[in-house]
């Protein structure tokens, strides 16, 4: 079991309100991703849940019990650190076994659990090695192994993939998602990468300056962002925000159109623009364009587009894909 509930969780460092008060429900078995720009308090929130930081105020309920004042180890959670935090002088086996050893498990139990974790993570051949002799991906797996053997109520991941190269990151992303499907344990995953958030999460929590901006399923955040911040943060390339008369015509302060929801034409359309740079990826084309009225915009067109710098084009937003925002940046229904 691993249902986690945060009630008015607050954290201040000195006079600085890092987390002014967060309420959040995480269901058992859910894969929740905390996402936000650096410095938004997502790691702090995770460390509060882990118990590595003391809450200033509020409750952290795990399966209905308030653990806000419990020691980290008593909470039954496991954490995977960004730096992996492996013990460099111990073999992989001892790294994975350390938590069990501290819990006073017998040698047979430790051996059995470590072996089965190693099997899940393809580490069986490396158990006698030291972390220094492993590749980045293997170290990552050892860190996950160390988390698995404790059979935690929930896994906490603190930007676990940011030290890996791009190809490996995609691999590990799939592995972690697969692991979640096998174990069906609650996972809380912190990242600044919205692609990781979109691809892995059952539920995304978007944070900014310690506040929860929106909670929801990935596709809900994509199609119904609650405000301009979420709209701009989720989705890549970023949403285009257009004000002026065009927005007024839609009865709002500003409209948001995702790059993939702009129709490109060389003859006619709503927004005349000039192509600055065209990035041809084969399956799609990114156009970085300049419009006299709205400034720099990004367009994502499917397939190959025979366009290059200084070509004149016209853009038309897809009518039912327009997001409308008021003067405070809140989405209008």
């Amino acid at each position, binding site marked *: 079991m691993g249902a986690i509930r945060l009630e008015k969780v607050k954290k201040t460092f000195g006079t600085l309100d890092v987390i002014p008060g967060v309420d959040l429900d995480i269901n058992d078995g859910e894969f929740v991703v905390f996402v936000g720009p650096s410095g938004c308090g997502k790691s702090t929130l995770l460390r509060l849940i882990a118990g590595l930081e003391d809450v200033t105020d509020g409750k952290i309920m795990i399966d209905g019990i308030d653990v806000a004042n419990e*020691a980290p*180890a008593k909470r039954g*959670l496991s954490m995977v650190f960004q730096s992996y935090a492996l*013990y*460099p*002088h111990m073999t992989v086996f001892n790294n994975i076994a*350390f938590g069990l050893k*501290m819990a006073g498990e017998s040698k047979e139990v430790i051996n059995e659990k470590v072996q089965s974790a190693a099997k899940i993570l393809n580490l069986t051949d490396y158990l006698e090695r030291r972390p220094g002799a492993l590749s980045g991906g293997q170290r990552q797996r050892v860190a996950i192994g*160390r988390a698995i053997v404790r059979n935690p109520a929930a896994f906490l991941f603190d930007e676990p993939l940011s030290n890996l190269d791009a190809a490996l990151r995609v691999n590990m992303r799939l592995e972690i998602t697969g692991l979640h499907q096998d174990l069906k344990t609650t996972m809380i995953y912190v990242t600044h990468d919205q692609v990781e958030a979109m691809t892995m999460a059952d539920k995304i929590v978007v944070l900014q300056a310690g506040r929860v901006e929106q909670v929801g399923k990935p596709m809900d955040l994509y199609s119904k962002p609650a405000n301009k911040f979420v709209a701009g943060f989720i989705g890549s390339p970023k949403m285009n925000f257009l004000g002026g008369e065009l927005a007024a015509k839609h009865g709002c302060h500003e409209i948001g159109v995702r790059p993939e929801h702009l129709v490109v034409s060389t003859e006619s359309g709503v927004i005349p623009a000039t192509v600055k740079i065209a990035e041809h990826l084969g399956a799609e084309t990114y156009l970085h364009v300049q419009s006299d009225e709205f400034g720099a915009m990004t367009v994502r067109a499917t397939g190959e587009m025979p366009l290059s710098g200084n070509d004149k084009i016209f853009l038309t937003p897809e009518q039912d894909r327009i997001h409308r925002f008021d003067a405070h940046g809140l989405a209008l229904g």
Partner: protein
Amino acid sequence: MSTRASTLTGRIMSAPSIIVLFLWMAVPLGMTIYFSFLRYNLLSPGTEEWIGTLNYEFFLTDPAFFASLANTLLLVGSVLVITVIGGILLGLLLDQPIFGRGILRLLVIAPFFIMPTVNALVWKNLLMDPVSGMFAWLASLLGLPAIDWFTNAPLTSIIIMVSWQWLPFAVLILLTALQSLDRDQKEAAQMDGAGPVSIFFYITLPHLSRAITVVVLIETIFLLTVFAEIFVTTGGGPGLATTNIAFLVYTQALLQYDVGGASAGGIVAVILANIVAIFLIRLIGKNLDN
């Protein structure tokens, strides 16, 4: 260095200093070895002659040699134990975010910059003196008789003084090592359920092993040749109680004017230092590999 030309240039450029350093070591060593086979006493100049290994026989069969060998090992061993354990404890303390940490660190490091003779004088006259020393005064406050340190516990007194001098070095090295310990590792151990004691023994101490090795190796080199503290305070006495090998060589050469015998003693000291070094490197030097 990538090209052959740059490698060659590097060698030529570094050659002068290497040659000077080599001569600096080789010439005195060669002369000492040569003198150790001569009868060479400053009181009877002009009578130098080759006497083979006689100097070595005298030196090695001298009862003073064994006493001073034991003293040397006792001194080195005790100071190592005190400074390493004390250094770890003080390092842990100074690693905590306590008030006035910067000044405290400075104060802890300070003794290392005091020259050994001054150190010895301070201890001898201000602290350990049975009449006017601070320890005697403290004892009198408690109604205890004053301890005459250099008469009753001479070697212990030397060990205390030398430890005081070398503790800062150990603290400095070990504190730096402590500061380089990844905070994530401690937190990971915390998540794994390790308490402060377990974290110390399973995480901190292994992390420090390399720094401890460095402290032990460097201190050993210097502690084998402790001289000023002994010269200033006890003069090797009472009897031979505080004579170590270095001091014994000094008495041979400059109190008995026996240059030949002192040279033989010097060579013996070099050999002993090498034996200790080999043991140390075998024992703990592998820590430096990984």
